[in-house]
Each structure stands twice: as structure tokens, then as C-alpha cells.
């Protein structure tokens, strides 16, 4: 094996009552690599991402960040103990999340959104947080909007602000949950452009997406999820060029029309 993966997802199951949304999903994300998760609506993609940072605690299985289990820890006697909410909080700040609905805090300016968690959670001095926050806003090309409120921004600008907010926490990996799905087509490019640059800079990323061309272009590995299990996985060339399973072929054909 050699290197410890940045994120390891190990046999994650998730049920809501009788409904089993994830039925044992495992994969590794190595440092600097981009893993895309594709699949039809209801295949469990978004739930998987929410399980990775414990917004939805998995019903069973575990997520490891650089070898450290997120939801449990090994105590002095070698026994596995579930972590408290405070400990989970401390772990999940290592993962930057970008949501489909942006979820910017409307009562704070763009810069306010970006520096909030670094100051309150990472306890960074305000000056430092602002300096790094501005750098992040420059990366997403939004530095001229730093004192605007989210309500005055376009969807694409809001999503770029949300990306800057996640970057400002200097996360070990970025999780993108259908980051362009609620954007008008003419606004998706500016967001995909930013994500493309992040990938090129060596950011570790898990990208849940419906943009097949984009997944093809930026991913090191693509995972096709079907009914809560990995139906097929491989390099973009394998997944998009030579799909093996009938389901993946069917799924991809819908996007080729």
C-alpha cells in the first residue's frame, strides 16, 4: 500500500429507517488526486458525501482522514470508542465542503463568510484570517466583491464565494456536492473553471457531479454509484471510454444525447 490515503471510506452503510441508501461503499482518495462520483439521482451520491464529513453519521463503516478514524477513536485499552460531537467537529474541519445550494450565511459579507470559521474554529488572529481570506477570494476571482452581501451576488459568484470559504480553512481535502447543479448553464463555467484550477494546483478533491465532460477532464478516478453500491470504478478513460457494466452504459447514454 505504501502511502496512507488522505481519505479512506471503508464499507460505509447508511439507512434512513427501512431505506438503505448506502450499502457498503469503500474507496481511497490519495493526496492531490481528484475522485469524481457519478450516478443517477437517488443513487446515494450526496448521502455519501454527507457521510464523509459526518453531516450524516454512517450507520456502519468508517471514514479515515490520514489514517485517523473520523467517527471513533481507539482508547488506551485498544478499544474503539465513538467520538463526541466536539471531537467530530475537530476532525471535520479538515474537510472543506461546497454545497449545491451554496449555503452562504446571508447576514455576513463575502469576506465575513470566508473568515468566520478560520477565526471562530481555527482561532486564527483576525488579521491573518483576513489576509488569507483575501488570498482565497483572489483564487476564485471574487476579490472585488469582498464587502458585498450574498443576496447581491449571482449564483456563480455565490458558489465561488462558498469555495473560497471552504479553502480558507486550509482543508486537507475539498468535497463538492453537485456544486453547479443549481446554477444557470451560463454560470456553471465560471465555477467549473475555479474547480479545474484547484485540481491543477494539486487539491485533493471528491467531486459529486452531473457534468460528465468535466468529470472526464479533471478526475484521476471515477466512481459510478448505483443503488448505494459502487457499480463500476476506474480511470476516466475506462469509465467513459469503455464502460463494462450495462447500467453504466445506460447511464452514460442519457448524457450523450
Amino acid at each position, binding site marked *: 500500500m505504501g502511502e496512507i490515503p488522505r481519505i479512506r471510506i471503508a464499507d460505509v452503510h447508511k439507512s434512513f429507517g427501512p431505506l438503505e441508501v448506502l450499502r457498503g461503499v469503500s474507496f481511497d482518495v490519495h493526496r492531490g488526486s481528484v475522485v469524481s462520483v457519478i450516478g443517477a439521482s437517488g443513487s446515494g451520491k450526496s448521502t455519501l458525501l454527507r457521510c464523509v464529513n459526518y*453531516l450524516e453519521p454512517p450507520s456502519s463503516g468508517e471514514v479515515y482522514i490520514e489514517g485517523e478514524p473520523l467517527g471513533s477513536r481507539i482508547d488506551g485499552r485498544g478499544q474503539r470508542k465513538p467520538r463526541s460531537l466536539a471531537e467530530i467537529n475537530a476532525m471535520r474541519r479538515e474537510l472543506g465542503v461546497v*454545497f449545491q445550494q451554496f449555503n452562504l450565511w446571508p447576514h455576513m459579507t463575502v469576506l465575513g463568510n470566508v473568515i468566520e470559521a478560520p477565526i471562530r474554529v481555527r482561532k486564527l488572529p483576525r488579521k491573518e484570517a483576513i489576509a488569507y481570506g483575501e488570498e482565497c477570494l483572489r483564487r476564485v476571482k471574487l476579490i472585488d466583491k469582498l464587502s458585498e*452581501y450574498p*443576496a447581491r451576488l449571482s449564483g456563480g459568484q455565490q458558489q465561488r464565494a462558498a469555495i473560497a470559504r471552504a479553502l480558507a480553512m486550509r482543508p486537507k481535502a475539498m468535497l463538492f456536492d453537485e456544486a453547479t447543479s443549481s446554477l444557470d448553464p451560463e454560470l456553471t463555467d465560471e465555477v467549473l473553471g475555479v474547480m479545474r484550477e484547484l485540481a491543477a494546483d494539486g487539491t485533493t478533491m471528491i467531486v459529486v457531479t452531473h457534468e460528465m465532460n468535466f468529470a472526464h477532464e479533471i478526475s484521476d478516478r471515477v466512481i459510478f454509484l448505483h443503488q448505494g453500491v459502487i457499480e463500476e470504478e476506474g480511470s476516466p478513460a475506462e469509465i467513459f471510454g469503455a464502460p463494462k457494466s450495462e447500467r453504466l452504459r445506460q447511464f452514460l447514454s442519457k448524457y450523450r444525447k
Partner: protein
Amino acid sequence: MSEALKQSLDISMFWEYRAVFLEGLTFNCLVFLCSAVVALSVGLGAALLRINRLWPMRWIGTLHVEVFRNAPDYIMLVWVHFVLPLLIGILIRRRVEFHPFLSAVLALGLVYSGYFAETFRAGIQAIPQGNLDAGRAFGMSERLILWRIALPQVVRRMLPEALNLFVSMFKATTIVSLIAVPDLMYNVSMVIQQEMRPLPLYSGAALTYFLIILLLSSGVRLFSERWRRKILA
């Protein structure tokens, strides 16, 4: 115009006693401010109980809201001032008496905490879940999320309704004269007993309340609306 009507609208007598009345009005403001603090903090507590995960907590919150929202402030005032000290006295086996000011603040604060609890609850529940998820995703504690993300939005959302509640609350401070808190109405009644001219004095008091509430509430509305609008798309 009839002589009687002319007399009752002539508020020059009210003006003569302005020093006494101003002193009374200060008491109205004090009672208002203190009971607003009680109403807001107890109301927030009750709202948080109402949305708690545990049903016994929710139950206590609901009980609080229903008891205080459905009690007339007049009766609550009398009850807090006369009955509550007796009950506490029995519990601790000592004679207890409440200062009228304390009773007034407690009674009004509690009654309005029932209303504020509902306003807070509606405000908290109106915040999109994703907004709170974002806080959690960045490792913020539930407390941080409440104070930094939820409440600042709740306050802006509930402002118009809260303003109405504050107006009713300020008007409700007039009933504290019943238990001899020397507020404006109390002092007016005292002067009426001396002068035997109730109509102009009541007119003066009405005009005073009207002007104060009108000025304060339009001032607050003017100041808050721009601040509030900034966050709403």
C-alpha cells in the same frame, strides 16, 4: 363645541404637572426595559426548549408558551404580586413580599416571553437547514452556530413582529399602576384625585403615550429596515 368637550381636550393642566408625570413616565420606561430583558431571554430559552430533540423539553417549552400567552397581563400581574409570594412563603416557611416593581417586571416579562418564544421559534425554523449544515461542516459547535449564524438571522427576520410586541408591551406597562408602581398612569390618578378633572388629564396621558410610541417605533423601523433588507434577496 360644547363646553364639556372643550374642557376635556384642554391639556394645559396636564402640562402644569409635567414634572410629576415625567417622573412617572421614567418608571414606565424602566418597567418596559427590564421586562423586555426578561421577555427576550426567557422567550429565547422557551423557544430553544420548543425545538429540542427530547420530547420532555419540548413539552416544558410548550407548557410555558401556552400558560403565559393565554394569561391576561392584568391577572398575571395580580397573581405574581399577591399569590406567588404566598406560595414561595409556604415553600421556604418565611413571609415573602415582592416589591411592586419586581412583580411588574416579572409579570410583564413572563407574559411577553410566551409571545417572544413563538416569534423566536418561527424565526429559527425559517432558517434553511443548509445554512446550519455549513456551520457544522466547518467544525462549528452548536453554540457557535446558534450565536453566530442562527440568531443574527432570526433577529432580522423577527424584527417587524418583535416591534409590534414591544409596542404592546410598552402600552401594557400602564397596568402596573394597579399594584402601586408610581408610573405615569398612577401619577395621573393621584393628580385627578386632587384636581377632580379626569378628562383633560387622561387626554394628556393618552397623547403622551401615543406620541412616544409613534416616534420610537417609526424611528426603530426606519433604522432597522435598511439593515434588515441587506440580507434578504
